[in-house]
C-alpha cells in the first residue's frame, strides 16, 4: 500500500484536490465542506513533503502518466527546483483554508460556500499541476483549469461589491488571450520539432539554429505566460481582480497564482529555450551598456 502511494506521488499531489473538489461540491453543510477542504489540503501538503523526501533521495523523478513512455506520453517531471513551488503552494493553500472558515461566511452567501470550496480545490489542483507537468500541452490545460477556477472565485466577490464582476470579466478575457497565445506558440514549436515534451523540446530546439517560426513561437509562448504571471506591461487585470475578490480568495491567489506562472516563465526561458547564451541576452546586454553611457 505505501509502495503504491510512494510510486504514484507525482500524480497524487494533483489528483487529491482535483477529485475531492467533485465531492466537496455535493456537500451542502458549510462546516463539513470546510473540514473536508482542510483535510484535503493537509493530505496534499503531506504528499508534497513525502515527494520532497523522494526527490532528495533520487535527485529527480520522472513519472510516466498511464505508463506511456515519456517522449510520446505525458511526463510528470519533479526535480529539486520544482519541488519547492509544490511545497509552497500546498502549504499556503492549507494555511489559507484554515483561516478561511471565519472570513468566508462574512462575505459570501451561505448557500454558495460549499461551491466556493470546490472551486478553491480546483484552483489548487490546477496550480500544483502547472508546476508538476513536463508536457507543453498538459501545461496549457492546467493553466486553464487554474485560471477559470480563479475567475469564478474572484467573481464570488460580486455578492458584496458589483465591481468584482467587471474585474473577473477582465481577468477572464486577458487570461484567455494569454492562454491562447501560449497555445499558438506551442503549436508553432510542435510544427518545427514534432514533440510536446518540454525536455525533448529543448534538445530539439538546440539543434535548430535560425528559424523564423522558432522565434515567433518563442515570442507567443513567453508573452502568453507573461500575461498570466502579470509581468509589468501586461499586469492590467491584476490589481482590480485581487482588490474586489473575497478576502480569503485574495490570500490564496496572491500567494500562489502568479508565482506558479512565474516559475513556468523561468522554466520556459532557461530550461526549454536556454536564453542564457543567446541572441536575446546579447541584445539586452547591448541595451544596458547603451543605457549606462
Amino acid at each position, binding site marked *: 500500500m505505501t509502495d503504491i502511494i510512494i510510486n504514484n506521488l507525482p500524480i497524487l499531489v494533483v489528483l487529491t484536490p482535483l477529485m475531492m473538489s467533485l465531492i466537496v461540491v455535493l456537500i451542502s453543510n458549510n462546516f463539513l465542506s470546510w473540514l473536508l477542504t482542510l483535510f484535503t489540503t493537509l493530505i496534499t501538503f503531506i504528499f508534497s513533503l513525502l515527494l520532497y523526501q523522494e526527490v532528495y533521495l533520487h535527485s529527480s523523478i520522472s513519472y510516466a502518466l498511464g505508463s506511456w513512455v515519456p517522449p510520446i506520453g505525458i511526463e510528470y517531471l519533479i526535480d529539486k527546483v520544482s519541488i519547492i513551488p509544490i511545497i509552497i503552494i500546498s502549504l499556503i493553500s492549507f494555511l489559507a483554508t484554515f483561516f478561511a472558515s471565519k472570513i468566508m461566511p462574512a462575505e459570501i452567501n451561505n448557500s454558495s460556500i460549499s461551491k466556493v470550496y470546490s472551486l478553491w480545490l480546483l484552483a489548487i489542483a490546477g496550480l500544483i499541476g502547472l508546476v508538476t507537468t513536463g508536457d507543453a*500541452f498538459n501545461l*496549457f*490545460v492546467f493553466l*486553464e483549469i487554474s485560471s*477559470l477556477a480563479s*475567475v*469564478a472565485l474572484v*467573481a464570488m466577490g*460580486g455578492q458584496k461589491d*458589483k*465591481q468584482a*464582476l*467587471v474585474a*473577473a*470579466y477582465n481577468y*477572464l*478575457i486577458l487570461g*484567455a*488571450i494569454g*492562454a*491562447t497565445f501560449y*497555445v*499558438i506558440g506551442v*503549436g508553432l514549436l*510542435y*510544427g518545427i520539432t514534432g514533440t510536446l515534451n518540454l525536455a525533448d523540446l529543448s534538445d530539439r530546439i538546440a539543434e535548430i539554429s535560425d528559424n523564423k517560426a522558432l522565434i515567433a513561437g518563442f515570442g507567443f509562448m513567453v508573452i502568453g505566460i507573461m500575461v498570466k504571471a502579470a509581468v509589468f506591461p501586461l499586469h492590467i487585470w491584476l490589481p482590480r481582480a485581487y482588490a474586489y475578490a473575497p478576502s480569503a480568495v485574495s490570500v490564496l491567489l496572491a500567494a500562489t497564482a502568479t508565482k506558479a506562472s512565474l516559475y513556468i516563465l523561468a522554466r520556459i526561458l532557461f530550461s526549454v529555450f536556454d536564453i542564457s547564451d543567446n541572441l536575446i541576452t546579447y541584445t539586452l546586454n547591448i541595451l544596458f551598456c547603451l543605457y549606462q553611457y
Partner: protein
Amino acid sequence: MISSTLGVWNYWIVFFLMMIGLFLVIGRKNLLKKIVGLTIFQTSVFLLYITFGKIQGGTPPILNNINETVYSNPLPHVLILTAIVVGVATTALGLSLVLRINSEYGSIEEEDISAQDLVDYHELIETSKKISVRFKK
C-alpha cells in the same frame, strides 16, 4: 514568389481570423462582442493546429495492408479536441459573467459601466466626508 506566398493560403485564413478576433476583443466596447471576438480568436488557433496536422493526400491513420499509404498526423486533432472543450468552458463562464453584469449594472457597454463605477466612487467619497464631519462635531 506569388505562388510561395499564396500557396499557403490556409495560413492566411488562420492569421486573418486571428487578427479579426484580437481586434474585436481590443476594439469593441460591448462585453458580448468581446466574447464573440475571443471565440473567433480561439477558432483561428484550432485551424492552425489542423492545418499542420494535414498532409496532402493523407488518409486517416488506420493500419491497412498497402505499404505506401500516407497518414495525416492525428495528434493535433486530439489536442484541438481538448482546446475546444477549454474554449467552450471559457465562453460559458464569460457569458454567465456578462449576464450577472447586466443584472447588476443594467448595461453591458463598457462606458456605462465605468460611468456608474465613477458615480458610485464619488458618492462613497461624499458619504465618508459627511461621516467624518459628523464625527468632528
